[in-house]
């Protein structure tokens, strides 16, 4: 299968290893990568801030470029929700409405693509550590992804998963983190405390944007707990 890959700006600039791991995994499984190199952003920051015209400016090239893809894999649950759930709303009543819906049906968050589309769970990874998993809210509630990342983690050798007591937001929320930093930080503290309670060494997530916020808090507070993206765990040997 030819898999079209959408890499959002923050993965490209800050967390390239996530993208590299995804490429390695998909290629190892025998798939051809079609990387949409000219795309940098799904338009979510503008969309979430209410600037839908500006969001459409960035989103339109994404729709046009990817609408005929065989499958689109997105390296973040949040951007995935943007393409899959919010594009049809964003383009409702415009000439791109049909294309947006067409694209929507082909979009997959990375872990969900492996498990539900490809039926793969065991990637031969080894990660001997106690970990906990943070569900990015967009992946969890907009896309309904809960089982897939866990199915993948179950097959990682040496990995021990301890769940946190709640499915609760880490407090990132895009521009929210800068507009209401005190609330965002308090939410992050609650999240980090719940993660620490599990006794885990790592917080794993399928969303780098959440991890950027969580890691930022942990580092600033000098905590030992570390963060790592699911894709990187799955390429660990």
């Amino acid at each position, binding site marked *: 299968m030819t898999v079209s890959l959408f890499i959002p700006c923050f993965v490209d600039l800050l967390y*390239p290893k996530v993208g*590299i791991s995804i490429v390695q995994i998909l290629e190892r499984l025998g798939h051809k990568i079609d990387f949409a190199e000219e795309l940098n952003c799904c338009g979510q920051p503008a969309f*979430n801030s209410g600037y839908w015209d500006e969001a459409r400016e960035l989103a339109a090239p994404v729709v046009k470029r990817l609408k005929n893809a065989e499958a689109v894999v997105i390296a973040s649950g949040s951007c995935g929700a943007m393409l899959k759930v919010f594009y049809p709303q964003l383009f409702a009543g415009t000439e791109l409405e049909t294309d947006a819906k067409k694209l929507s049906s082909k979009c997959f968050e990375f872990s969900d693509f492996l498990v539900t589309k490809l039926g793969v769970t065991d990637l031969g990874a080894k990660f001997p550590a106690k970990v906990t998993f943070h569900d990015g809210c967009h992946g969890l*509630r907009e896309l309904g992804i809960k089982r897939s990342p866990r199915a993948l983690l179950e097959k990682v050798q040496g990995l021990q998963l301890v769940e946190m007591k709640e499915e609760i937001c880490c407090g990132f*929320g895009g521009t*929210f983190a800068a507009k209401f930093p005190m*609330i965002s930080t308090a939410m992050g503290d*609650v999240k980090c405390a719940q993660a620490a309670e599990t006794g885990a060494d790592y917080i794993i997530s399928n969303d780098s944007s959440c991890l950027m*916020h969580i890691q*930022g808090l942990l580092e600033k507070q000098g905590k030992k707990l570390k963060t790592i993206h699911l894709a990187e765990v799955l390429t660990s040997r």
Partner: protein
Amino acid sequence: MTAPVQQFKRQAEVLTHDLRHREIIQTALGKYAVVRDKNRGAFQDYQSARQAAAETKWEAINHLDKHLEQLVSKLEARGTKVHWASTGDQAREIIQKILREKKARSIIKSKAMTSEEIHLNHALEEEGFEVVESDLGEFIVQLKKETPYHIVFPAMHLTRGEIRDLFNKELAANATDNPEELTMVARRVMRQKYITADIGFTGANFAIAETGMISITENEGNARLTAALPKTMITLVGIEKVLPRLEDLALFLPMLATSGTGQPLTCYNTMYSGPRQPGEPDGPEEWHVVLLDNRRSELLADPEQRDALHCIRCGACLNVCPIFRNVGGHTYGTTYSGPIGSVITPHLRGLDEWKHLSYSSSLCGACTETCPVKIDLAHHLLQNRRNSVQKKSSPAWKLGFELMNFVFKRPGFYEFVAPLGRAAQKLHPMIAGKAFDPAFPWTKTRSAPKIAKQTFKEWWRERG
């Protein structure tokens, strides 16, 4: 910045650092979550029940005119006096007029968020009436001269020690901090009030169109007594409270209970269809039902967000909301707080002044997930944001997004982001976390992420 947003940010700054507040709220809501999950889990099919509840409210609201007319004709047929109020002012005037006509002096109230919405107590007290809230939580916040902290748990932010101090000061109760003892203090105070009050005032949880009934859900029995003993009863009802049929309650009473307090069913669920009828031994001689619009019809006119009128005021969305849990109920400065408050307040009180509540959300969607009538809460926050920008955009944010678009749409420019970023980051540590750092809102509490030595695109191009 307008006043409500400043007030919100100021109080949020205080509350998010108040670890004692955080602990109180987390403990209380932790208890709630355990029973809620247990009792939702006891349903044979909770999700189907939820869908049916959503459809029933859809039917009620999308034929609201028909249902209201049916409700009113049934109520009037049994001697109930029905009043219509377009605004809060009108509702207050109607109620004050009844009180004057009855030469009333004292009013015993059971819990009614609609009365908070129209600031009724204040208006009545100004006019010299004695107003007593009978719900324990409401009684506590009334004594404390506060507004309810939460639409279902009005005093959840207070500890038993604080309530003891309050009762000892205001009621000379000489009580310990034992919750049972404190509850009995309130019980004793209130008993005489029910008997001597001229007016019993209630809210409503549901209004049944088919049979002309007002359904009131409670645990304490205070509403039962309020509707039994005083000679005149007044009930204030938002027009959105209608349900089409009596048997819809078989679904809605347990749905409200499991979402509201976590219980399978609250202690008293009571349907009133008139004042005391011939042959009945007690009950009010007169019953006035005041139907309140107060801009609900404006929300109704927005089909995209009309489902916000499905709300049964259970408070479930507040309880799961991480923003509510960290800033607390009073910070909102609104009658209805939490996600539902953030969605409807711009409609009820103006988008310009209240749009910040829609922005103060990480859009995590926990509210939408828990809502027993499937209100699309998180998406409505997005729509409020869009509507506010359409009305009046911020030049700075607009310019920011335009710049971002300019760069992101041009690979030639985007290529410079990484090297420029790396250069900037070399200098950034000197100012990071300081007040004049442009990234201060981030770096005050979080370390800044680093631009990678090799970006993904650089890696991709390199491997060819």
